[in-house]
C-alpha cells in the first residue's frame, strides 16, 4: 500500500516500494541499493533485477542530471486535461539512471535544450499526492 499517492493520477496502489511515497512526502528523493551487488535504482525497485538479490536498502539520490528529450503536451488524456499544457521529459541523472518526469510549472518550452543541466526534486501535488519533478538549474 502507499503507492496510490504517487503522481497526478495513479494506477498502482500496492508495491514492495510503497514507502517511496512517504519519503517524497518528507521531501526526500530516495532510491534503492542492492545489498549484494551495490546497484542503485531510481525509480526504486523492490528487488535487484540485475543480480537477483532480494535485499535492498534505501539510499538518498542526488538529483542533478541532464535533459535527454522532452515534449509539451497540449492535448491530454482523460484525468489530465486540467493540467495542460505540461512538459514531459526524460532526464539522465549524473549517477547514470534515466528518469521520466514532468517539468516544474514555472519552466517554459522556450527555455529547454537537450543536454542542459537539470535538477530532480521531490514535490507535493496537494495534501495527499506526491511526485518528483525536473527544475532548470
Amino acid at each position, binding site marked *: 500500500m502507499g*503507492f496510490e499517492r*504517487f*503522481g*497526478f*493520477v*495513479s*494506477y*498502482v496502489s500496492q*508495491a514492495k516500494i510503497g514507502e517511496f511515497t512517504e519519503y517524497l512526502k518528507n521531501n526526500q528523493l530516495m532510491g534503492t541499493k542492492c545489498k549484494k551487488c551495490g546497484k542503485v535504482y531510481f*525509480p526504486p525497485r523492490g528487488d535487484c533485477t540485475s543480480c537477483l538479490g532480494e535485499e535492498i536498502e534505501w539510499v538518498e539520490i542526488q538529483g542533478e542530471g541532464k535533459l*535527454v*528529450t*522532452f*515534449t*509539451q*503536451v*497540449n*492535448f*491530454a*488524456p*482523460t*484525468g*489530465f*486535461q486540467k*493540467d495542460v499544457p*505540461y512538459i*514531459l*521529459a*526524460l532526464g539522465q541523472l549524473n549517477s547514470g*539512471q*534515466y*528518469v*521520466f*518526469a*514532468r517539468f516544474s510549472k514555472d519552466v517554459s*518550452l522556450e527555455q529547454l535544450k*537537450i543536454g542542459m543541466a537539470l535538477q530532480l526534486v521531490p514535490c507535493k501535488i496537494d495534501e495527499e499526492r506526491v*511526485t518528483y519533478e525536473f527544475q532548470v538549474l
Partner: protein
Amino acid sequence: MTNRVAIIGVGQSSFGKRPDSSIRDLTFEAFHEAIEDTKNLERDEIDASLVASSSGYDKQRSPAAVIAGYLELNPQPTFLTEAACASSTVALRTAWSFVKSGLHDVVAVIGYQKMTDMTSEAIQEVMGRAGDVMFESPFGTSMPAYYAMFARAHMDAYGTTEEDLAKVSVKNHYYSQYNPKAMFQKEFTLEKVLSSRVIASPLKSLDCCANSDGASCLIVANEAKAKKFAEQPVWIKGLGLGSTAMSLASRNPPFTGFESAKEAARQAYAMASIKPTDIDVAEVHDCFTIAELIAYGDLEFCKREDSPKMIRNEETHLGGRIPVNIDGGLLSKGHPVGATGGSQIRTLVHQLRGEGGKMQVDGAKIALGHNVGGIGMYTNVTILEA
C-alpha cells in the same frame, strides 16, 4: 516437397469511424474478403483461428470466442494474441509456427479494433497506459507525447525538421487517394500539415494517425494447401520479432530508434537471406510521421542520420529506391490497432501478386512489413516473396 508457408487469402474492412459496425460486423467484412480472395477455400479447411486485438478499447473480454463463434470457426482452436499495435503480426508469426510445425494446415489470422465508441481523450488515456503505469502514466503520458519525445531527440541529433516530418504525412496522404479502404482518401498540402494544431510538440494533428475502427484477415497455409487454394500464393520468407522495455527510463540510448525493430530486422533479413537493398516495396508502422523516419534507420534502409534525407529526396515515394506506405500508411488509412499489421500485409500481398493498381511497384518480388507495438515494445518484421 519443401515445407514453405504461404498467405493464400487477404482481406480487410474499410477503416475509419464505423458507427454502422460492431466488432462482429467488422471482422465479418475482413474475413469474407479473405475467403473470397482464396481459390475456393471452404471454411472447414481452416483448422485454427487467431484473433488479434489490443485490450481496453471495447467492453468485450476474451474476444476470440466471440469472433470465432460469429464466423462459425468452432470447434477448432482459437485464442487471442496481444502485442498492442503489433497484435496481428504476432498472430501471423504464431500462425506460421502452427503451420511450419505441422500442427495445423490452414490458419486464419483475424485482427480488429473498435476504437471510436470512446472519446479521443479516453482513447489517449488507454494508449497512455501502454506506457509504464507505475512511473510514467501518472505524469499524463500519451502515444503522441511519447513519439514527440523521440521526434525531439531525432531533430536534435540529426537536424531533422518539422518540415521533414510533414513530408511523410504529405506523401502517405497523397497515396491514400488510391486506397478505397483508407479513412482519409485525400491530399493534404505541406502548409496544411505544418499549420495543424500541436498535439504534443513538435507533433501536430496531421503528424498523428487517427483512431479508427477496422478489421483485417490473413489466411495462412502450408505448401500443399497453398497450391490447392491459391492462384498466386505469397510466401513468408523471413520473420523477426524483437522487444524493448516499456519504460523509456529502462532503455538504452539513442532515443532515436527502437532496439526491438533493429533486432526484428536482423532476424528477418537473416532468415530470408536478403539485404535491405533487396526490398522492392515496404509497409512501415507510421503511427506518427517520426515513426516512419525511425523505421528507415531501424530497418537499415539508410543510416539513422540520413533518414530525413530519404524523405527529402523522395527515395521512399513510388518510383523511388524503396517505396514505403504507398497504400496511405497508418497516417491516412487510420490505425485500428489490432487490425493494422494484417492490413499492411494485405497491401504487400497485393503488390507481390501485381494487383496494386495505380500504386503497383513494377516487378515487385520481395516485400517487407514493419509493425510496431506501442512505443516500440514489440516490433515484427515480415518479409514476403512472390
